[in-house]
Structure formats: C-alpha cells, structure tokens
C-alpha cells in the first residue's frame, strides 16, 4: 500500500513538474513545424510567468492572469516573427536576443510595478490554480495533435516547414501560415510560464524558468517534432526531476547518503543521454530555419 501511494505521489509530481514543459514544447512545435526555429521559448515563458503573476495580482483572477500570459507571449512573438519571417534575420540570433530581452524586461517592469526587481508579491491560495493547468496541458497536447495532424491548416503548417515552395504553388501564403504558427506557439509558451508562476509557485521571481524553455526544446527534438512523442519526452524529463527529488538523501551503502549533487544532475544527465544516445534519426522539418523568400 505504501509503495502504491509512493507511486501515485510520484506520478502526480511528474505531471505537475511537466506542465510548464508541455505547454512550452507544444508552443515550440507549432513554430518549428512551420519552419521557424524557436529558441526564444525560454524568454517567452519568463515573460508569461511575469505577466501572469502581475495580472493575477491586479485582477485577482488566475484565469485572467493566464489569459494575459497567453496574450503577452503572442504579442512578444510578433517582434520575433517580424524579424525572422519578414526580414529574414538569423533565427538563432533573433531568438537569443528575445531571451535576453525577456531576461532584462521582466525585472525592469517588476521594479517599476512593485519596487523589487526580483519578485512580485506572493499570491494567496485562492488566486492560484490547484490542479487545472495539468489537465489543460494534456488538453493542449491533444488539441495540438488534432490541429497539426488532422486539419487543413495543420497540413499547411507542415508544408510550410517541409516544402514551402509547394505550399506557395498551391496558392497559400507561406509567410501568413508561419506568422500564425509562431504567434500561437508564443502564446502557448506564455501559458507555460504562467503555470510556473501562478500554479507551481505563488509569485514571479527573476529568471524563475531556470532553463525550462530549453528543456522543452530538447523534449521537442527528442520527440522528433511530433506532438505526442514530444509530450512523452516532457513527461520523461518531468519524471527524472520528480524522482530526483525523492532520491535525495537516499543511502546506497554505508551511512553516508549519496552526495546530493550527483542526484541533482539527474535531469540534465537524462537530457544529454536522451539527446545524444537514443534520439535515433531525428529528422527536422526540411525548411527549418530557412527564411522563405519568394
């Protein structure tokens, strides 16, 4: 019975930890399937986390907070989309710039609004989500799958990433499809950030994403840019983090517990192992990272 409870708690913990990753990975998938590399996920999440915390503090409604985070991610993505789709900037450079911009802007606004560049006021329990974001995250995965695989628009997105010329020949505006995908993806990443600040904790703190955006990107690549495998990869990362928490202070031999640093590198270790070892033939969308010029 105890073992059963332990497993249930481990699973619950896995789902919680994975939630921000799931949103961000789906956001990244939207963008990358349309042919736009999105390493700005980290920045988008950070911005989403801040906007969600501030908006919830302002409106006293986590639903509005999450909506604001979605919009913030979407609006921030407009800049990114403009740079990479319209102007044809290098997508890695532009994405890095976006990340740095978010890293600087969030403390800046936090300082203006709350007088502290490191955290926003803590939200009471009734202004936070309890379990909803976990279910919403799984819902988003299903929706993304349906959207990308089953709908005509999804097909356009796939073509924009694989053979933009063919899509263009068919009379569909490639740039418009990419714009759409990048913006929706940005919104989803914003939601991922929101789940971090108003679900997993009670305020925004500086750089609170702590690399989760890049974890989501790794999960996306590991999942071969497909929604369901990418989601499973997120759950694997979440699982390694959750089990890491439970393995701390475990005694393997003698009286000394295993040094905690060894256990704490587990999630990173899994990431490297998975990306370097088991990913197999990960084939990116063919036109990924290539600006479309008519």
């Amino acid at each position, binding site marked *: 019975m105890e073992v059963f409870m332990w497993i249930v708690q481990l699973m619950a913990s896995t789902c919680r930890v994975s939630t921000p990753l799931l949103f961000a990975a789906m956001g990244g998938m939207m963008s990358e399937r349309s042919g736009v590399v999105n390493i700005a996920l980290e920045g988008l999440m950070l911005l989403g986390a801040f906007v969600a915390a501030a908006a919830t503090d302002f409106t006293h409604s986590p639903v509005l907070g999450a909506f604001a985070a979605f919009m913030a991610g979407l609006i921030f993505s407009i800049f990114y989309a403009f740079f990479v789709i319209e*102007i044809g900037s290098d997508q890695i450079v532009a994405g890095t*710039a976006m990340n*740095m911009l978010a890293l600087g*802007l969030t403390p800046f606004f936090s300082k203006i609004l709350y007088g*502290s560049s490191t955290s926003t006021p803590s939200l009471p329990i009734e202004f936070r989500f309890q379990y909803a974001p976990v279910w919403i995250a799984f819902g988003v995965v299903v929706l993304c799958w349906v959207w990308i695989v089953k709908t005509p628009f999804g097909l356009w997105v796939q073509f924009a990433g694989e053979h933009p010329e063919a899509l263009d020949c068919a009379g569909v505006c490639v740039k418009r499809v990419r714009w759409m995908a990048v913006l929706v993806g940005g919104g989803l990443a914003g939601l991922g950030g929101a789940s971090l600040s108003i679900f997993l*904790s009670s305020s925004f703190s500086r750089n609170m994403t702590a690399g989760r955006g890049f974890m989501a990107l790794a999960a996306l690549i590991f999942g071969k840019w497909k929604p369901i495998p990418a989601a499973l990869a997120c759950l694997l990362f979440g699982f390694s983090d959750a089990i890491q928490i439970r393995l*701390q202070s475990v005694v393997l031999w003698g009286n000394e517990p295993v040094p905690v640093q060894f256990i704490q590198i587990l999630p990173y270790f899994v990431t490297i192992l998975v990306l370097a070892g088991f990913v197999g033939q990960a084939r990116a969308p063919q036109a990924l990272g290539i600006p479309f010029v008519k």
Partner: protein
Amino acid sequence: MRAWFKISPLLCVFVNFFVCSEVFAEEVKLQGGGKLRIGLVLDRGGIDDKSFNASAYEGAKKARDTLGAVLKYVESTDGNFVPLLTSFAQKKFDLVIAVGVSQVDALKKVASQFPQQQFAIVDGEVNVPNVKSILFQEHEGSFLVGAIAALKSKSGKIGFIGGMDIPLIRRFALGYQAGAKKAQPDIKVVTNYVGITEDSWNNPAKAKELAVSQYDSGVDVIFSASGASGSGLFDAAEEKKKYAIGVDSNQNWVKPKYILTSMVKCITQAVFDVCKEVSRGEFHAGIQRNGLADGGVYYAVDQFNQDLLSKSLIDQVEQFKADIISGKIQVPDYYKNKK
C-alpha cells in the same frame, strides 16, 4: 533599411543592457550636505525576499530615517557583484554593505582595491583590514527550532530544505538535526536541497515540489534555509495544512497558522548598528559574531504563532537555550567540524 532591420535583434540586446543595468546612471546629489552615505548591495533574493535581504534593507532604511543618512541600494541580478561594489566605492560612499555569502570573493577583491573605504558584509567572512564581517551563529538558532519541530511533530519525521549544498546551509542543517535529536532522540530528519546553481535561491516552484514530496512522505514540520525559494515551502504548507519554519527574518506573518516559528537572525539590528558606528566615526573592522547569548539569533514568538506553541514546549526550549548559553549543550558547528 533592410540592413538596419537585420541588425535590429542586436539592437534589442543593447537596449536590454541599458534597461537592466542595475546601477542607474542617475547621479544623486550625493556630494554636498555632509550626510552619511550608505551603499547596500543585495544578493539575488532581492529587496522583497521576505528574508535576509529584506532584513538588511530594513536595517539600512532605519539608518536612513533615524540617522539622516542617504541610502542607495542595488539588487544584483546576475551574481556579478564586483562592478556594483566598485561603483559604490568609487563614489566614495561612507559605508558599503554587501549582503550574502556569495559576495565574499567579490568583496575581498574590491576591499583590497579601496583600502580607504569602509565595508561591511553580512553572512560572510572577509579578512581584509577595512571590512567588518557580520556573522551569525546559525547553528545555535537552528538547534532551537529543530527542538521545536521535533516536539511539535506527531509523525516522528521532520524535514529540512536547503537552497544549495554549501557550508553555510550545512551549518543550519547540522544544528537543526542536533536540536531535533536532543528533544526527541528517535526523530527522523529528511534533508533536501533545491539545486546546484545560484538559481536555487530563487526557485520557489522547485522548493514547493520538494516540500510536497516531504509532506507526502509523512513529514509534518519543515525548516527551510533557501532564501526566496522558501515561499514555495510556505505555499506547500498551506496547501497540505502542515507546518513550516521560517528563516532569517521573522516570517511568521507570511502564512499565519502554518508557520510554526522563524529562526531569526537580527540582521536588521546588526546592519543598523554598523551604520551607527560609521556615523559616529567608530567603525571597527573585524569579525562580529552574533549568537543566542546576545540576541543575535532567536526563534520568533509573536501574535501569529503563539497559539501553535504550548507553554510546556516553550519552557523546554527555553531550557535548551539557557543550556546552550551556559555551555552545557555544545551545538555542533559545521564550520568547526570541517576544520
């Protein structure tokens, strides 16, 4: 035009540097007036961490209000302390206070560069002739809250969450463990650490997950020494309806009913005192240790938690406190054990 657009992401980065550069170029009219000028360099937790940075700021603010000093503070956002400390020193502030153990190396460097400048550091030891190191006997205070946790625990299991696995935090953990064992010899103490990078002081989501996992495994009181991450612990305690213990400043008010007590380090007073010394021209460099005996560390009892602590429990803890002060109980000190 196109070329200009192509470098526009780069421009973003430049703008960013201007926006977030912490020492704003604004030159306060600092020269005239002959007022005492205090520069405060806060750690990553920032002014609103409801913990040690907040208390240091409180102390400096008190100095500003009662001594008529001019106070400028900066929050380090990237752990790059040298430029912040240097900029205060170059502007010839009367006293520059560095808050947090992570500034030790930076202050060593800057203090030796500006030998005429008076510096103070909270929580760290810097042996340079113009630096006052304000240290606290964390292990003694942790011993007492450990005893409280053990006496209050019904399950026989209590928890500890540290920010990073560093000597300062080990010192908390060791004292806490010793206190718990002294009060309840068969108590079990579960220890977790938030992470391995500086982000660990600012990762409430992770701290909350750790706390939830401890509460789920039967722990019913958790003490956390993890800076701003501690707020995650309080959220978990509130959700699971278990107890938490605050750290550094009196955090009992943050979540009344769920915070059993706080292990307070009188940083506010210590910072104020050093400002006062400077204003009177009596600045003494060297090491100042604040312990139980002089009230430098204590466990907080106030209107928010007095219902949680019974008379007999307080009596027992007070006895421990007296024994520690008289030397009857030797609290293990990680700093000494290591040497």
